[in-house]
């Protein structure tokens, strides 16, 4: 169906330019505020120092190893948490008794502060990457879980009935109805989940580890090296934006069927 004429967005390069402008603006404000000591450089570092440090870390290559570990943990937490969240979300949505009985417990577990659980993760999974992955998973899982659960429930009843009449088995319903219908919910949750997977990994490293960006940030914090802390966060955010871009690309591909605001082309043919 058709919807009002869209205010056409500027073209890609213009948008990119605007984005870069925002970034530069941000660094500029940061610079001015710290240079004039309105913000204390002790707490906020200075953008130049942070950029310089980040650059030299990359140039010298020391950061790659740590970054690799963190990204590995993030990826594992993201994948495991997402798959588990989707699986449980679907299961719960399709098994009302299970869902209604376990509902309060799921919510309760979601409310447990993971930081406190870190020793238990360390006990069970050791100090290696898996305890960090576990931390990330506990964050990612619930976000995905609740959205998938809701997404499945939002499936159009008519479309569902139609597929059933066409002979779809439960497996088919999952593949052809529930999954595509819940996809926009899933992706909405994935955008949050990517960030939380990274947060989980970094916080895990921060609480106890031998490598990773969280480890480096903690180390920098231990010697009051604010520049090091912010440089670590900068690297983090850069990579989360990259991962998120990948999610967005996949999302676009999988959701290309979605009705957009109807448009006519101006070029003929």
């Amino acid at each position, binding site marked *: 169906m058709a919807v009002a004429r869209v205010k056409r967005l500027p073209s890609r390069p213009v948008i990119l330019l605007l984005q870069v402008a925002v970034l530069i603006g941000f660094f500029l404000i940061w610079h001015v505020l710290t240079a004039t000591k309105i913000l204390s450089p002790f707490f906020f570092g200075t953008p130049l120092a942070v950029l310089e440090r980040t650059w030299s870390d990359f140039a010298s290559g020391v950061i790659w190893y740590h970054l690799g570990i963190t990204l590995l943990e993030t990826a594992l937490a993201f994948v495991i948490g997402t798959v588990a969240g989707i699986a449980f979300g679907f299961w719960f949505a399709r098994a009302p008794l299970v869902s209604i009985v376990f509902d309060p417990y799921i919510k309760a577990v979601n409310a447990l502060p993971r930081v406190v659980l870190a020793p238990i993760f360390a006990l069970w999974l050791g100090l290696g990457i898996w305890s960090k992955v576990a931390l990330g998973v506990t964050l990612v899982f619930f976000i995905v879980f609740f959205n998938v659960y809701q997404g499945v429930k939002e499936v159009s009843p008519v479309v569902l009935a139609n597929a059933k009449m*066409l*002979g779809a088995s439960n497996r088919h319903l999952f593949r052809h109805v529930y999954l*595509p219908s819940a996809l926009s919910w899933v992706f909405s949750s994935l955008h949050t989940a990517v960030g939380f997977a990274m947060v989980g990994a970094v916080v895990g490293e921060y609480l106890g580890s031998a490598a990773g960006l969280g480890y480096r940030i903690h180390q920098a914090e231990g010697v009051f090296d604010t520049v090091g802390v912010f440089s670590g966060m900068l690297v983090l955010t850069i990579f989360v934006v990259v991962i998120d871009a990948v999610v967005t690309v996949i999302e676009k591909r999988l959701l290309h*069927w979605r009705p957009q605001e109807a448009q006519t082309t101006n070029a003929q043919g």
Partner: protein
Amino acid sequence: MSDSAAVAAALRTEGADKAALRLDGVTCTFPSPDGRGQTYTAVQGVTLSVAAGEFVSIVGPTGSGKSTILNVAAGLLAPSAGRALTFGEPVDGINPHAGYMFQADALMPWKSALENVAAGLEFRGVPRREAEERARPWLARVGLDRFGDRYPHQLSGGMRKRVALAQTLIVDPKIVLMDEPFSALDIQTRQLMENELLDLWSADRKSVVFITHDLEEAISMSDRVLVLSAGPGARLIGEYRVDLERPRDVAEIRMTPRFLDLHREIWGQLREEVLKGYAQTKLK
């Protein structure tokens, strides 16, 4: 069957065991909108039976309960009282012999027209590629073969209906339930589709339950026309056997005197029902 032997015997003597579809005193009462308070009984004590290979139309005022009856036959709605049988088996869950073309838009929005038509085959284990190959001629049959790659929201209302038609028929169900399948089509396309459907039906004699508001359509297509009263508590109040010869051309048959007789007769009863229903709800 959990029913008493007596009931079973009674049914058997009526030859119901062989009926493709049988509704037995079906009553559907819906809870009120807010979940408490007054309930609403849409249909009451509807008993009907459709023989194998029979083409039955149901007509009745809008909102009387036609779609509700189809939902019960399809196994999508459990009646409050009474029961549905298909080929002698009680319908419990989805009716496995039935195909259902819904009144509302029911295409999967994330599948293209072609994929939507192919879906039923895929669900039956046909490999994707083959299913789409077999779906193509069906799209052509409903006049949409150049529109296979469109998503439902890119199709016009009538086109979506035609895709749904192909989608329902491609899996070759023994019982076809159709809820106003042609109401969004212009008269000519409609007649073409009607003839298509009759061709298909006569080729392998499915059972068809056909809901329409177009009495001419009902008569020209069916072996039997059932008239539903106005709601609430709609009941079947008329049954007309259409003894026109087959094969028929839907356009030509409308000119025959027998057709006109039947039309006049059913129309009289229907008109009364509608006015009654309307009078009940109309204040002004």
